């Protein structure tokens, strides 16, 4: 598969959340704000890329019968090392992302990509797939987080400077000042509602695109029949 195809798959056609419906637990649990979604997405992307590269590197050495335990051990080790390294050397960032890192172990999307793509692809393709899937996941989480935050507390990217540094303080916007907030959007039901709406939206867009592709072809077909 070429790089273009890989990115198309990761960002839209086979998006981790909106198409594969994997990793819904972190996708719903931490997306109470755009910033949280972004943080979880970035941390996951880092692990996803390194896991994909490792798995692609050893793909010929591993027997199919034991591949799943091997991948799990690798992913868990990787996540723990990332956790330790962040805690030791990027402690400020760790205080913000710490919670998310531990959750990455439970992210089935990483094992899913190792199994479905990286174990059958050359290293470079696997790395690209990790990046593409990671960006797709980050976008999905950020969008869900932003929508829940907007309806739930009337802000966008609140506390983004805690995650990205003071230079990104401009991202923090209050859309509706003195907004009481719809509590439900912050609580778990809000996550399901937003996810459902976004899934429906993606279906509509996909159906439209498919219809557009089909129309000229079917016109030709009917013309030929008459």
């Amino acid at each position, binding site marked *: 598969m070429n790089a273009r195809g890989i990115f198309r798959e990761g960002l839209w056609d086979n998006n981790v959340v909106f198409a594969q419906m994997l990793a819904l637990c972190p996708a719903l649990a931490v997306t109470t*704000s755009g910033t949280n979604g972004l943080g979880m997405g970035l941390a996951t992307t880092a692990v996803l890329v390194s896991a994909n590269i490792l798995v692609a590197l050893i793909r010929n050495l*591993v027997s199919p019968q034991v591949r799943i335990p091997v991948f799990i*051990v690798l992913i868990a080790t990787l996540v723990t090392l990332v956790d330790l390294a962040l805690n030791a050397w990027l402690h400020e960032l760790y205080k913000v992302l710490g919670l998310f890192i531990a959750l990455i172990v439970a992210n089935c999307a990483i094992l899913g990509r190792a199994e479905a793509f990286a174990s059958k692809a050359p290293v470079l393709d696997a790395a690209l797939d990790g990046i593409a899937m990671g960006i797709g996941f980050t976008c999905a989480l950020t969008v869900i987080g932003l929508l829940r935050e907007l309806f739930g507390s009337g802000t966008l990217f609140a506390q983004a400077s805690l995650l990205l540094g003071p230079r990104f303080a401009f991202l923090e916007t209050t859309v509706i000042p003195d907004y009481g*907030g719809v509590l439900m959007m912050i609580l778990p039901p809000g996550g399901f509602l937003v996810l459902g709406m976004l899934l429906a939206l993606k279906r509509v867009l996909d159906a439209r695109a498919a219809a557009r592709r089909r129309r000229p072809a079917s016109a030709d077909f009917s013309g030929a029949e008459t």
Partner: protein
Amino acid sequence: MNATLAGLRDRLVYQGFSLGVVAMIAAAALAIGNRLTHEAIGQAETADLASSLRQVLPAGMADNDLLADTVTVGVGPSQADAPPVTASGDFMGGSEPGLRARGANKVGAGGTATVTVYRARKAGVPTAAVFRMAERGYAADIVVLMGVDVEGRLLGVRVVKHAETPGLGDKIEIAKAKWVLAFDGKSLGDPPAAKWTVKKDGGVFDQFAGATITPRAVVKAVKTGLEFFAAHREEIVK
């Protein structure tokens, strides 16, 4: 080469062996990672503790190393159930009789029955004490760090660990709201014991829209902490 590898991969011995090798490499990587980061993590955590100690202690209160001047006060169940020595009955006659014993039993983060108190001194004279208190919040234990001067007045309170609902209960963090500053200068008698709770329960402390349990728990933790200090003042201030 590839043919031999393919043949090998089907052998049970190779599968077990490869899994073992991967596990060993993983264990080695983790051991090395732990050794490399152990010191830095310890330093970062000490720095964290020192900076949070500074937050609950106004500048100029201490000229000693608080982290080196600690006292561990045991709060066994028997002691917790007994009435406190100096925080006498009028603090317990509030609307929630069960509150004190329950709160004191949980004293100390992580359910241990001891509290580590960091003592601040100026020119050798005790000026203040800093310690942690935990109270069950909405989701999990909320741990607060509180600074108390020798008279039992609060110098500062910070929530150092919690798992409250993001966007609702997390206003107890100083990074998100100024709510915890309301404790500064308060003591067991000010406001009176009956008012040591959130406004919804007839007290003086604000709750947040959509979250009452969280601020209630923090107020309870702070009150329990003050009662703990009053009960163990002799041990702490010396």
